[in-house]
């Protein structure tokens, strides 16, 4: 039986398959919300959605796309920004 704290719905339930056709319920903490673009608010691709302790162990290159403003702006907004910059110069 799961202990009382695991029964609360603030924990998410993960069904894991074991060998021998067993299915067990694991109770894990919920993931944080998706990373969003600072300008348009669209969900960013290439940014993993994990709890901070997992993000700490990940490499920097795995946490964001390797372009300017990667992990901060979406690609569309980044292009628009760079175009403006280019014209001003």
């Amino acid at each position, binding site marked *: 039986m799961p202990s009382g704290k695991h029964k609360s719905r603030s924990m998410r339930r993960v069904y894991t398959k074991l060998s021998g056709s067993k299915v067990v319920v694991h109770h894990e903490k919920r993931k944080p919300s998706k990373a969003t673009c600072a300008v348009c608010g669209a969900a960013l691709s290439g940014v993993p959605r994990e709890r901070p302790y997992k993000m700490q162990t990940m490499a920097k290159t795995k946490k964001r796309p*390797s*372009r*300017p403003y990667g992990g901060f702006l979406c*690609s569309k907004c*980044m*292009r628009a920004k*760079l*175009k403006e*910059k*280019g*014209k001003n*110069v």
Partner: protein
Amino acid sequence: MFEIGRLCVKIAGRDAGLKCIVVEVIDNNYVLIDGQTRRRKCNVKHLEPLDKVLKVKKGVSHGDVLKELKKEKIEVKEKVKRIKKVKTGEAKTGEKPKAKETVKKQEKPELKKEIAKEKPAAKPKKAVKKDESKPKKTVVKKAKKKTVKKAKSVKAKKPKK
């Protein structure tokens, strides 16, 4: 729009935000660029043209492109990584293989002796032939593993004495 010598800003990929010159027009859609970016084929959609057009011949070398960009006060960072890589690579490769070689030299003769000890009475000639005829990788690997374990055990024993 994208004629040869056109100054552009790259808008996509890891080179985004860097300035470059059109060196060659390949297609309606594709163009060869060089400058602060890597010298590479590039889709026109990934470029933003600027006002200036530099006077440059078709297919200019990388060095000449850098000179032209210097006149426009656009500096290009030169790669320093290569030297570092070579140094580190030499140091690493220089140390490791030496150690491996020494280990192998020490272990190999031991192995042969052991094999000889194990099967001296049961037709030693055939055993030798087998070794020659079947130099399989698996056999070698097993032998290496054994030797490593033995070497470790020997090393462990020595300091105790």
